[in-house]
């Protein structure tokens, strides 16, 4: 295809592609989140547990993007909520710069909350319709930073221009903006405290096709400018390939494969990753993929299958898969997989 005029290219996502040398900022160790299934109203007792997230470990490195992919119900959003301290993990640790965020004092914890910000999927519900743009962007600074009004106003205006809006937008209300512009606002708000990590929960899937590229490019540019790390939750593999340095594939509350992005797409190992890739829509009509047909649907996290959670749908299932849980193994540099085949 011919290249369209008026666009410059600046290479892949910023930061070193290998990422081993970058400092670890945020680390999840064996994170678990079980939700009780209760019976009875007054003296309710748990009759079972929904294992939304069941032992997840990963690292977010400085200036890099870690993607978490998976289908709905795999626990990717619950993982994001735990990192944002919106849910308390049932088990496991979250380490920020080496310190357990549930063990540190109130001041440190407040620092953590400012250092880890979020951008959500739907910019129609994530912005308060009764607040003006300047107040939306300024609110985190008013609460967390000791700045004068003038400084806050100047910073808010700079943030607005950085995300591609104009300073005069500051006096408008969210309903006066389109979906793409609202997502820019949400990004400006997330950046207002100079965070070190931003959790992006499906940041482009609610947007129109022609707007998605604008937002993805903006996020990549801002990553270089603000030296911020992203944790990107997504279900679209193409988005993940474009945005991420490292990718974790989740299935039924567990990470089944974790790898550097190029390696993952060139050499997917876990049967579920392979199936996901074979089910993804082609980018050209001539691309014919060998389809790996998964039978049935994702089992309920209430009673996940024994052994490997994927064995009920796996085309390469072996005897030991139903009894033994495979652990994460590093099978190639920067490429971990949890499967008995390897």
């Amino acid at each position: 295809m011919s290249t369209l005029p008026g666009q410059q290219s600046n290479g892949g996502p910023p930061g070193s592609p290998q990422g081993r040398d970058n400092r670890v900022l945020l680390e999840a160790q064996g994170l678990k989140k079980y939700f009780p299934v209760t019976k009875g109203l007054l003296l309710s007792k748990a009759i079972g547990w929904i294992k939304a997230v069941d032992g997840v470990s990963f690292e977010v490195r400085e200036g890099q993007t870690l993607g978490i992919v998976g289908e709905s119900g795999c626990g990717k959003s619950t993982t994001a909520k735990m990192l944002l301290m919106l849910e308390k993990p049932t088990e496991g640790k979250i380490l920020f710069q080496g310190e357990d965020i549930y063990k540190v004092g109130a001041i440190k914890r407040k620092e953590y909350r400012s250092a880890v910000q979020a951008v959500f999927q739907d910019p129609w519900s994530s912005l308060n319709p009764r607040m003006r743009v300047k107040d939306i962007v300024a609110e985190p600074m008013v609460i967390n930073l000791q700045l004068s009004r003038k400084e806050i106003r100047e910073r808010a205006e700079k943030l607005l221009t950085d995300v591609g809006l104009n300073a005069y937008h500051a006096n408008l209300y969210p309903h006066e903006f389109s979906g793409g512009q609202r997502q820019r606002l949400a990004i400006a708000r997330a950046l207002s405290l100079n965070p070190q990590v931003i959790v992006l929960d499906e940041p482009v899937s609610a947007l129109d096709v022609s707007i998605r590229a604008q937002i993805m490019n903006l996020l990549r540019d801002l990553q270089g400018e603000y030296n911020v790390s992203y944790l990107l939750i997504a279900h679209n593999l193409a988005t993940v390939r474009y945005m991420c340095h490292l990718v974790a594939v989740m299935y039924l509350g567990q990470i089944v494969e974790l790898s550097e992005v190029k390696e993952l797409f060139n050499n997917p190992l876990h049967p579920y990753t392979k199936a996901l890739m074979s089910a993804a829509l082609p980018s050209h009509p001539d691309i014919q993929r060998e389809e790996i047909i998964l039978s049935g649907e994702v089992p309920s996290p209430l009673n996940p299958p024994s052994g490997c959670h994927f064995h009920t749908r796996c085309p390469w299932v072996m005897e030991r898969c139903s009894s033994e849980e495979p652990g994460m193994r590093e099978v190639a540099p920067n490429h971990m997989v949890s499967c008995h085949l390897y």
Partner: protein
Amino acid sequence: MAMTKDDIVLQVENLRTYFQTRWGTVKAVDGVSFDLRRGETLGIVGESGCGKSVTVLSIMRLILSPPGHIVGGKVFLEGQDILQLSDKEMSQVRGSKIGIILQDPMTSLNPVFSIGDQVMEAIRIHQRIPGRNGVLEKALEVLRKVKIPAAEVRVRDYPHQMSGGMRQRVVGAIGISCQPLVLIADEPTTSLDVTIQAQYLRLLKEIQEESGLALIFITHDFGIVAKMCDRVAVMYAGRIVEMGDVRDIFNHPSHPYTEALLSSVPKMEEDVDRLYSIEGQPPTLHNLPEGCSFAARCPYVMDRCREEYPPQTQTGEGHFANCWRHGA
């Protein structure tokens, strides 16, 4: 594909649907023409608000009026202009000759009736099958066709007892229950997960190959177009701006909008250096600019584009685009 004129099952000519609103007339569909051949899949692609759904709802004559009006055009189904039919005659056509699958199976199924009842309703209205058992047999047959496991048991289920993928299969079963000539699928898989989407698309293809029905696929996703469609119509601001064979569109997009859309989508198969991003927003339909509606966002814009809407020009075999770059 060697096709003759006789193969055309649906022909839309200069269809125009306007909505009267407080802010003026919204020209949601403004002169859309295409034809659809037997056994073919036509994709209608565009962003939200480009008029793709209103186009198919107009064909089905399901536009709520007021505020909407089909103000002009013709829709020939097997040679008969269905826009001229009375409401009663139209309800005979709807469901039996043209089926539809809507986007969200949660809202297109009635939560208080069992899925068996809902499939049987369409069959009872359009086909003369004596006895409840005959209708039930037929309903089970279509449910098996869309691969609902244990259909005899699941007919008694209510929509909330099924997963999203299964519900969408039921909607598909209703759509094909009366062997329609044309099946319209309006973003049928946007609410489904990736692997479930793949299952559903494969199923639709199988049904089409078996029955030879013509499929209109409304989508915003070029991936679905690449996987499913034979021909594509790209819509922008109420008009078809480019139409052609799917490979021609992907290999040589003629309209700048198509070209821009294709290069703004990330690819799973290869690394993309930097995505093209289309500046600005789609225009509002009640206040369309003079000339080409894409002019404000077009990287190749010329003076002429702002003055006059470009005519349809042929840029290849069966490949048309409305753009001044291809002359007049």
